[in-house]
């Protein structure tokens, strides 16, 4: 079938069905196009993001029990491969790697080489949840939407192929519906799949998002999707929106956080927060990095490496012999205010996609949705008190 001849495979919103057994063909089609496939797999008691050699490595039949400060794998009653959430890694591990060489320079020969040691491979990201699709869009804005694009991100992002997988079974820590980026997805993908694993078989309803997606799908066995199957898939996604584990009140968050700078609540969080930075590591939009310059023994060859950093680390805000943010209160305040508040002013959207990873992976189970509620309640109480006492100056 030639893609241009088959209108079903154009980005038109028409759907086809691919059997789970034909995921192997998808892998071959992707590799045929020169992609390295990256997707979920079980490792070390969790579902992580890794390079996959074959479809067999997908986590068929694995789900998770996730809650505040809790993540366990569990056996699913079905063979679904994408029925899990809140894993400890996100796609930023691929697009915005934890370690990357920015340049190397040689004083003796007088040359400076830019970029990573080798051309990065072109990655096919298989199994990107809608929250993570939005997260990639957010990283696009942060790292490639400014005056200068981050070269490492741009190099990997430009070559990336995205296969989104919609959610039909949100996790206990999920709140993508509140953040308006799930459980369904409309754009930002080359292919989008909705997984159905029920009495009628294990299959995927697939939509094409781009011509590149159509090219790959052309080499995968598929059949036209009948109306009933399409309805079943879309209903599952719609109903998922009503079963979110949590909800985030998004109205007026930037204002709430700006007004809460002197809230007594930060002391409360600080009594719990370990400033371990787990939340920043698992968050799909946290992007902070730092650089390390290294040399060889001669001192004539130098390299600059960029590595992940976290606003929780004590010297993140180092200035003039000390750090600006030394207390736990100030560092937690910085993270949540940035993620939900100042991100809007800096990058034009919220920084949060409601994936719930930070809630699951916080060792003490701090819940970002609850912290926002607490701040809102305190501010309401303070405002009411001020009104009673003839008005006060709200800083």
């Amino acid at each position, binding site marked *: 079938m030639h893609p241009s001849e088959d209108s079903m495979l154009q980005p038109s919103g028409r759907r086809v069905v691919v059997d789970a057994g034909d995921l192997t063909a998808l892998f071959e089609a992707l590799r045929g196009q020169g992609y390295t496939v990256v997707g979920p797999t079980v490792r070390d008691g969790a579902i992580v993001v890794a390079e996959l050699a074959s479809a067999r490595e997908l986590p068929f039949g694995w789900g998770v029990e996730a809650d505040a400060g809790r993540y366990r794998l569990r056996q699913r009653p079905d063979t679904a491969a994408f029925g899990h959430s809140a894993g400890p890694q996100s796609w930023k591990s691929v697009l915005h790697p934890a370690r990357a060489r920015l340049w190397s320079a*040689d*004083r003796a020969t007088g040359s400076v080489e830019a970029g990573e040691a080798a051309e990065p491979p072109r990655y096919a990201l298989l199994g990107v949840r809608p929250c993570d699709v939005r997260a990639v869009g957010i990283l696009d804005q942060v790292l490639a939407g400014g*005056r200068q694009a981050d070269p490492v991100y741009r190099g990997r992002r430009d070559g990336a192929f995205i296969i989104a997988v919609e959610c039909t079974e949100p996790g206990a820590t999920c709140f993508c519906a509140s953040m308006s980026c799930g459980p369904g997805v409309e754009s930002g993908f080359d292919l989008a799949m909705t997984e159905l694993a029920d009495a009628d078989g294990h299959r995927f309803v697939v939509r094409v998002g781009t011509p590149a997606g159509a090219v790959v799908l052309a080499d995968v066995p598929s059949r036209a999707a009948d109306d009933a199957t399409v309805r079943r898939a879309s209903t599952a996604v719609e109903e998922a929106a009503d079963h979110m584990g949590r909800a985030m009140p998004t109205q007026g968050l930037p204002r709430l956080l700006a007004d809460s700078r002197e809230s007594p609540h930060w002391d409360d969080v600080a009594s719990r927060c370990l400033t371990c930075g787990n939340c920043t590591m698992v968050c799909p939009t946290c992007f902070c990095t730092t650089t390390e310059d290294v040399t060889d023994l001669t001192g004539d060859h130098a390299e600059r490496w960029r590595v992940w950093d976290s606003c929780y680390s004590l010297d993140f805000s180092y*200035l003039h012999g000390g750090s600006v943010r030394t207390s736990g209160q100030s560092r937690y305040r910085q993270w949540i205010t940035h993620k939900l508040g100042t991100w809007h002013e800096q990058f034009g959207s919220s920084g949060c996609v409601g994936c719930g990873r930070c809630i699951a992976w916080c060792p003490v189970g701090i819940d970002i949705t609850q912290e926002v509620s607490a701040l809102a309640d305190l501010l309401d109480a303070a405002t009411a008190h001020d009104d009673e006492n003839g008005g006060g100056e709200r*800083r």
Partner: protein
Amino acid sequence: MTGQETATATSALAEPSAAVPCFYRVASRQEDTGDTVTLELTEPDGPVPAFAPVPAFAPGQFAMLTAFGVGEVPISVSGLGDSGGGRARRLQHTLRAVGAVTRALCAVQPGGLIGVRGPFGVGWDVASAAGRDLVIVAGGIGLAPLRPVVLAALADRSRYRRIVLLVGARTPADLLYGGEFDRWRRDGVEVAVTVDQADSGWNGEVGLVTALIKPAGLAPGDSVAFICGPDIMMRVTADALAALGIPPSQIRVSLERNMRCGAAWCGHCQLGPLLVCRDGPVVGYDRAAALMRVREL
């Protein structure tokens, strides 16, 4: 290693990357005070393949300077340099040795290499003060990023009314560019200097730099202020000028925060909603005042 060392950017990428430094040569090195050095950087001599000078810097902008093999720090330009063809052919930076990288940069001798990335940041925008009085208040090393304001205004003297420069330093030995003050006075700058602590040879003013404001007899409605120095000095000075009647939006401060990239990718330089490398370092006091007051922001 013999002869002149060179380092050039032969970029593997299609376009020059903002992440890769261009290695300039140190043309001259002057020790200003015990721990401060002014370096003049120029393009390397001879046809060095693929060396491309970075774009020209405006007053108030900063470069990320690399000490080879040690690291990188943000340093504002302290002079106008040479911006032929819109490129930075010559750059001037005043550095204070406070850490490993700045110590290494201060130690580079003429002929040595320093990596330059930039220009980054929002500058002082001196031209926008045309027709008004410039009130320039410098505390300590803060005079370095402000020197280009003085030089830019003098280069186009008739465009501005009064140019008032108020300088505060710790001791007379810590005064920067003291040798230029008389020439600036001759060229039309009103220069007043004070120190926190006098020594036996000092015949000038002693006291906080804000004490120089009232005697200057400013016209608040027609002034634009440019302030640079330690955070508290900037706040106290800005408050004093605002109390005189200069609108906070006409008072510009130069903020400083930890920077690892200069290009709004690394997230380090945030002050509330501001990314100091992108939305600053020069910010109007109407925006900065509330942020500067919050503890540990």
